[in-house]
């Protein structure tokens, strides 16, 4: 029996940022700039905010330069709306697209090392789905820092927070939100190094815990993207929105799942199956290998399902080939050399002479904690939770609806981060200090941790994780339909039971990796359950969500799915209407902002 768990110490601050990634720290920076003396604590699971997942984003950040004679924010709004398969909120689209450039300049001002043009201005590159003139031709809209745009952004917001003396607490997880009546007043945190539980009392709390696709066998996400933020919100009785919308990138390097950018196919790379047949010709006779992401992902899975895929024993994974061998030498050496080097380094193949193993990889979660256009967390579509805010990939405002365009996510982090920061400042004006720890503080957390620590069960973390990741990949992955979804839900229930009987190998609280991961695994199972339930409920195909049994989009489902799950498997649903304010404003070309067909 492990000694009784208790809260070791209590910290107080004005603002608690759970998740010091791009979004969380942009919000913090905004607050610091407006009121420099604000006491902010920012939490992260990694050793420094700089190591948050935003650092890995490569491609770019979309924003329309007002000096660009051709491009206009309206085009960007249209692309985003169309890209979302008519399921994003237009008030958010308008806000984000209108202020994108301001944010680029803000980043530049604060030290980001954007790539430059000949005149020393910020350079821009084209990206999938971003077009001029409502889909006429490619737009140069993605501002970038070589292939490290995310790192540039992360460094910049981290730097800014450092400058203002934000108190970073690394290597910790927020395990539970604290409430005083309805108002959120902070969180319980657990520190990895000392194994100490602390309470953090804050006037305002921001959830910005980022991505959450680690429940899939292959994923571009980092080790810590386990949906903690969503799980603690769900445990607190709050809803999550549109979780069924998981974006799969068609070409992840097999095994690690590292992204092999679309640029490869742009340069002429060809997908091939076991018999080296260029199979995309069958699925998309005209666009072939340059068809949209979701379509290609589905085609690859079909090939694998029908036995024309391959199996990699080292990584225990199915895949197809990406063929780069026929590309001219200068393409290999100049244009794609950096991405190729990933294949050499991580997969150990030489793309110039060998076939590269790729498979769809879980990449991004469009859904998250529902917020209004100011970052206020919603209890239901009409009501917000005072003192609780959310932004970034953990939140859904929703800019992306059920499908996101490349480079729009970084834009969202930064703009919504700022907007949320502003709202927090406003909220702080007449927010009172929390009165003290609520009496039930720590109940959820200690319930979880003492279960793991005191278990004598025979279950092991690795076994449960393995089944989870395969179930999600196979049954709640790219293709969904009723029967597998129901099976997956059953499996998840089973896994939840098993997870409660995992006996962690060490009973120490200090730097106990097994304990920490078991806690994460529970969050994954929780979030997976909501994904599966959401996918089951949405009997249509829209954006990244594809139901084989309902392959068409249906107007019946023109809403966001809200799911509540205060206890595991105690699911209830609600709907949030899609905001159509651009359409309703009847401005220029407003008809394009109706429920239009999504065709490229």
């Amino acid at each position: 029996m492990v000694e009784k768990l208790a809260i070791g110490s209590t910290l107080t601050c004005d603002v608690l940022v759970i998740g010091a990634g791009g979004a969380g720290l942009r919000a913090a920076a905004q607050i610091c700039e407006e009121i420099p003396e604000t006491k902010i604590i920012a939490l992260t699971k990694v050793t420094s905010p700089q190591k948050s997942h935003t650092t890995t984003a490569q491609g770019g950040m979309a924003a329309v330069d007002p000096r660009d004679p051709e491009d206009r924010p309206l085009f960007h709004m249209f692309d985003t709306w169309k890209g979302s398969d008519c399921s994003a909120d237009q008030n958010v689209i308008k806000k984000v697209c209108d202020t994108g450039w301001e944010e680029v300049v803000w980043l530049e001002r604060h030290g980001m090392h954007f790539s430059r043009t000949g005149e020393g201005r910020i350079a821009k590159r084209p990206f999938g789905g971003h077009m001029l003139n409502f889909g006429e031709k490619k737009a140069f809209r993605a501002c970038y820092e070589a292939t490290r745009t995310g790192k540039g952004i992360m460094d910049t917001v981290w730097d800014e927070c450092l400058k203002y003396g934000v108190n970073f607490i690394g290597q910790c997880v927020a395990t539970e939100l604290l409430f005083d009546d309805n108002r959120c007043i902070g969180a319980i945190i657990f520190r990895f190094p000392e194994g100490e539980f602390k309470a953090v009392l804050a006037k305002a709390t921001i959830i910005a815990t980022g991505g959450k696709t680690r429940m899939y066998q292959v994923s571009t996400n980092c080790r810590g993207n386990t949906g903690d933020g969503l799980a603690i919100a769900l445990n607190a009785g709050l809803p999550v929105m549109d979780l069924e919308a998981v974006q799969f990138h068609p070409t992840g390097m097999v095994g690690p799942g590292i992204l092999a950018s679309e640029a490869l196919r742009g340069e002429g790379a060809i997908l091939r199956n076991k018999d080296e047949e260029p199979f995309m010709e069958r699925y998309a006779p005209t666009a072939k290998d340059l068809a949209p992401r979701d379509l290609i992902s589905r085609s690859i899975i079909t090939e694998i399902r029908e036995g024309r895929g391959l199996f990699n024993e080292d990584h225990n994974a199915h895949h197809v080939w990406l063929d780069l061998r026929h590309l001219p030498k200068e393409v290999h050496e100049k244009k794609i050399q950096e991405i190729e080097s990933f294949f050499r380094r991580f997969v150990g193949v030489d793309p110039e002479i060998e076939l590269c193993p790729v498979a769809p990889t879980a990449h991004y979660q469009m859904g998250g904690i529902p917020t209004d256009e100011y970052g206020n967390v919603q209890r239901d579509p009409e009501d917000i939770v005072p003192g609780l805010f959310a932004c970034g990939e953990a939140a859904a405002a929703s800019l992306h609806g059920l499908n996101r365009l490349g480079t729009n996510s970084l834009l969202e982090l930064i703009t919504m981060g700022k907007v949320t920061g502003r709202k927090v400042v406003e909220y702080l004006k007449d927010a009172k200090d929390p009165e003290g720890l609520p009496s039930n503080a720590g109940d959820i957390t200690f319930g979880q941790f003492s279960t793991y620590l005191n278990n004598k069960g025979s279950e092991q973390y690795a076994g449960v994780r393995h089944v989870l990741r395969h179930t999600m990949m196979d049954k709640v992955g790219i293709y969904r339909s009723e029967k597998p979804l129901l099976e997956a839900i059953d499996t998840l229930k089973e896994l939840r039971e098993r997870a409660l009987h995992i006996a962690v190998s060490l009973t120490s609280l200090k730097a106990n990796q097994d304990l920490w991961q078991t806690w994460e695994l529970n969050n994954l199972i929780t979030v997976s359950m909501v994904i599966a339930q959401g996918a089951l409920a949405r009997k249509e195909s829209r954006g990244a969500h594809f139901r084989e049994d309902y392959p068409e989009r249906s107007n019946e489902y023109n809403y966001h799915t809200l799911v509540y799950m205060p206890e595991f498997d105690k699911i209830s649903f609600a709907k949030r209407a899609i905001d159509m304010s651009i359409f309703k404003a009847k401005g220029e070309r407003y008809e394009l902002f109706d429920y239009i067909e999504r065709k490229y």
Partner: protein
Amino acid sequence: MSKPYKITLEIKRYDPDTNLSWIQSYTVEVGGILRFVDVLRKINDEQDPTLAWASSCEHAQCGSCGIIVNGKPLLACELLVKDAIQQFKTNSFKLRPLTIAPVLRDLVVDLEKAYERVHKAKPYLIKPAPIPEEGDEYRISQEKLDTYIEATQCINCFCCATACISTHHHFIGPNAAMANIVRLMDPRETAKEERTEILYREDGVYRCHTSRACSFVCPKNIDVSHFLALGKEGRF
């Protein structure tokens, strides 16, 4: 596909509860294209769930997974088994935690402590130069940018600081010193005086002996010693 390799990892372990430290050896059979993080995970899954190690992005972008393998500080997520065998000409590897920060458990070190070095170097723009006009970006020519862009790739994995001959007690360390130098070279920074003071103070760049181990081990291939020399030379 690839043939399996039998490798032995001799891992230095540390238990913070008993304060004991010992060497434990694990033999695993793995595919050649597994990364060391995969091998460590496999050991967790199949042999010893108590073994602790660190990682986050697992594709050499965040700098969380630094360890010392056969004397060389490197990223565990970037080292493939077959490359390791080729590079070190052996199937047995000695894994040690980085020496730059206190060990928390086994291979996990408290990089938060090491980061204090970087914080001291003030990696942000202290006082940005005025912009041409509201809403416009500061102009930086690509040529100017090229002189320092390489150094901005640093992910603070502290491999260099671990390898360095002089980063023990007095030197701020290669990556932290470089973070300051980057901002000295950044045309947008106007607080040059404050920066040169950081550069030349007691723990500053002069403590570097140009042993160039930093450049040698840097997983991002940054020629760190070049930037440190620019600092000594006062050429920003």
